[in-house]
């Protein structure tokens, strides 16, 4: 039983990190119809920047914030200089973001090297707590879960309760109409792309405490993000929440209880969803 609780908590913290990454991915797709394959690389770069910032100033939280802001800035630059030139050409956008993956990864390899890095949590977060029933569980993971929930709630509030959120949601449903209403869709695109990158950067900083930063970590996380949004529904925020929970928990139970079938446990629901609801659990069919 204890083992089951530990594995559930592990699955939830993994789901938290997946949510941070996939919510940004799904937002960008929902609003801009861009499958940003560089999202994983932005995650990894965010993690590396957090690492260097923490080395420099010695404060974990400053590292997380700097990583998020730096990646948001990178998002703005990429959107303004690269993505906007190929708007609407699906193949060009896909290839351009794929090309970015190689550029960013090689730059990261040149700057941070190939040795695996991991971020250190400060003080009490590095300790463990004994939960009722004698379960020893690391504080850091509970903290990550907590932070993911807080960020998730903030995003929910932003999307559901503010004017900006209303514009973004309207953009997902009918871009032409939003434009016709006199709203600056260009600006919305840039802001959404920046928000997506910010979430990925923060995800990288938090993920780096549990998952280690190394070449290829970006491909791992991108795979998870893709599964999450396909299961949850491309473009749907709630879908990202639900998808993260399903994928995080299944991936963890799979590894713990049927290690030989771990990947089957992860991909089987994906196939089922694609067969029964190709638009994803909470996705809407294209109008």
């Amino acid at each position, binding site marked *: 039983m204890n083992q089951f609780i530990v594995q559930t908590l592990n699955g939830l913290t993994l789901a938290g990190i997946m949510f941070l990454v996939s919510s940004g991915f799904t937002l960008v797709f929902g609003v801009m119809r861009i499958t940003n394959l560089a999202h994983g690389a932005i995650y990894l770069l965010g993690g590396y920047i957090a690492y260097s910032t923490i080395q420099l100033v010695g404060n974990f939280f400053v590292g997380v914030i700097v990583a998020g802001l730096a990646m948001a800035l990178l998002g703005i630059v990429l959107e303004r200089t690269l993505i906007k030139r190929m708007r609407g050409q699906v193949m060009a956008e896909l290839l351009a973001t794929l090309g970015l993956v190689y550029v960013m990864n090689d730059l990261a390899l040149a700057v941070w090297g190939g040795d695996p890095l991991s971020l250190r949590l400060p003080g009490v977060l590095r300790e463990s707590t004994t939960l009722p029933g004698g379960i020893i*569980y690391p504080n850091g993971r509970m903290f990550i879960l907590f932070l993911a929930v807080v960020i998730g709630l903030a995003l929910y509030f932003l999307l559901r309760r503010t004017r900006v959120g209303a514009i973004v949601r309207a953009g997902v449903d009918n871009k032409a109409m939003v434009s016709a209403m006199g709203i600056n869709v260009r600006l919305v695109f840039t802001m959404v792309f920046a928000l997506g990158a910010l979430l990925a950067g923060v995800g990288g900083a938090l993920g780096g405490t549990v998952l280690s930063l190394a070449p*290829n970590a970006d491909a791992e996380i991108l795979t998870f993000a893709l599964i999450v949004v396909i299961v949850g529904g491309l473009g749907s925020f709630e879908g990202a929440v639900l998808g993260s929970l399903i994928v995080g928990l299944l991936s963890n139970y799979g*590894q713990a209880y049927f290690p030989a079938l771990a990947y089957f446990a992860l991909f089987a629901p994906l196939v089922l969803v694609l067969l029964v609801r190709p638009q994803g659990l909470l996705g809407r069919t294209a109008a």
Partner: protein
Amino acid sequence: MAVATLVALSLGACGEGPGGGADTSEPGSPIKVAFEVPLTGAFAANGLNQKNGFELGLDTFGREVDGHPIEVRYIDTKGDPATALTSARQIVQEGVTVFQGPLVSSESAAVTPYLAQQKVPVDDLTLCSEVQLDSWQKNGNGYSSGWSCDHPALMAAQWAYEDMGWRNITIAAQDFSFGWEVAGGFKAAFESLGGTVDQAIWVPLNATDVSSYVSQISQDTDAVYAEMSGVFAVRFIDAYKSYGLTGAIPLVGITQLTDQSVLPQLNRDAALGVMTGAQYCDGIDTPENEEFVAAYKEKFDLYPGYYSDAGYVKAQIMVEALKSLDGDYSDPEAIAEALQSVNIEAPRGPVEISDKTHSPVQNVYICEVQEIDGDLRNVPIKTFESVPPEGPLEYEEWEAHFRHDSAGRPE
């Protein structure tokens, strides 16, 4: 200074010595060395450490033998077997005197048969597969100067049973041929002594979160033996601490678990006290190693890890062997023979190559992570001297399990 003298001496020897057999021994013609090593991709860090070690070794032992300059070409394999094989073909066609083998076991499996067919003398990093063992036993062109994969594991098992008195052990290993070979060696030796392996936890290479595996370790095992390297070593040791196992259940592992390529990344409290069965530790207390560590630290501002020592030893063996050939590098068989007849005092201790397995007979250490002058170091707490590749097992028994484990998980 010593290098200059050596070079001067060997130059002299060349002038007086008899002329060699073939065109390769024309005065001043280069000795062509090809070094396949991953310099980009997931194994880049390990590859770079090996290259650094090799360069330092050439600085130390000489870049010229009998008037022939040693010309080294590094080829980036990216850790990919197909690239390794394609480049090997090209290298051989262009002519090569000594081939320094790849790093990843899948790369070795790809190039070994081709190099044997072409009779190219090859110094491979590790002996990890049946393919290598068969090929080298049959053709004699290749050997490993680093280690046979299960060598330290065999001695770690003996130490765990005899010195520590542990009877029940949990093994955690990565689920691929290297992991099978290491875990299989440990299990075979530990069980032959009378111990029991409680549980074997296999971690897939694409596992994202190692914690789910660490949290499966049962609280009532005597100790854990871990085969983890690179990112996995970092994640494993961190998770071991955060799930409350550090200090409660002793953790022993392979060299790479706390090698200097990962040690600086580890959480200090989590790493202190972790032990390894190792063919090299940076804290070995011999003049050869102290000199090597000091030179390495000065040149690269890092402590050398196992891969750095491996590169250095490759250079040491190669230069030593080339010197014994009196300027004649035309016969690949003689070169392969010379390479495998060298006896050296390496940073890791005395190294010689076994005739049976074509892998080193060398010391195996049990090392512990300790803090020395504020740095985390691996310090030997026990030394097994000049151990043959089969360790405490009978040779036939060892070879049978070695062949079996390179193809699948040990039973």
